[in-house]
């Protein structure tokens, strides 16, 4: 049987959208090679990095301002987290960029709980408009309440996810609060994965 190819036209789309589309297509599968057409240098570079990270054989053909990038999956896990593929800007002096944000409560700080929740809602909204976003947003303890049905922050967490932020909620915490079936954004994870992510780079903890 001859190899099958799926094509994606990502011209005119800003980063990380071409990478998001490519990741989705790779996750769906059903072809041997994915060919993505882009028309700007940033998307070209990000797709090349994404392809390598996603364990694909990567080929790029440049012609007349367009680049056709062919991704042929080679490994077992072709759909890694997106923020890994869209590199973060260079870190500020004195420390690298925050890679992980840990939200360990459904509010920021002690004191009045209404104010704490208001501040955290505001922080999450502001992140959706920020130039720099973390690779991962980890939700633990009552922080998991942010990602369940009825949460005021649900829409903004989905926006962050669309920008490539991986949202991960602690499974034990969801189960403790009886919220597992109500998780509406992101994935469920365990302590091994959480501990691994918390140790992999600069982390900001709010809660």
């Amino acid at each position, binding site marked *: 049987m001859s190899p099958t190819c799926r094509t994606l036209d990502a011209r005119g789309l*800003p980063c990380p959208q071409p990478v998001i589309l490519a990741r989705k297509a790779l996750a769906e599968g059903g072809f041997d090679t994915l060919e993505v057409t882009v028309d700007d240098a940033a998307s070209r570079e990000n797709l090349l990095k994404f392809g390598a990270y996603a364990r694909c054989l990567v080929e790029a053909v440049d012609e007349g301002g367009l680049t056709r990038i062919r991704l042929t999956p080679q490994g077992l896990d072709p759909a890694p987290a997106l923020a890994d593929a869209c590199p973060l800007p260079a870190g500020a002096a004195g420390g690298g960029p925050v890679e992980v944000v840990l939200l360990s409560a459904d509010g920021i700080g002690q004191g009045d709980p*209404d104010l704490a929740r*208001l501040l955290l*809602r*505001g922080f999450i*909204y502001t992140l959706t408009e*920020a130039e720099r976003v973390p690779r991962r947003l980890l939700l633990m303890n009552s922080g998991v309440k942010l990602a369940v049905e009825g949460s*005021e922050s649900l829409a903004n967490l989905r926006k962050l996810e669309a920008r490539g932020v991986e949202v991960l909620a602690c499974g034990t915490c969801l189960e403790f609060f009886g919220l597992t079936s109500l998780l509406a954004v992101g994935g469920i994870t365990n302590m091994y994965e959480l501990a691994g992510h918390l140790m992999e780079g600069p982390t900001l903890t709010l809660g």
Partner: protein
Amino acid sequence: MAMLLLATYASSHSALRAEQGLRAAGLQVELIPVPRQVRSDCGFGLLAEVPDGDLLARSGAQDLWRVTEPAAGQLRRTYEPYL
């Protein structure tokens, strides 16, 4: 025609009270941090799609701002005074 407005308030208590009142009145509102270029005594305001500014003005708002969604490739909404 509906438009997106941001209402600012004199205090966070007023903003939270207005959020409750407007929701009870059936209006969908989102409490967001007030951007730097928008002046307000409180750091939070209410965003709502409304036909005009009447309902928001009656909620105790300090000022109203007309909001434009980000252009393609941009991240931030823009704001101008709503008279």
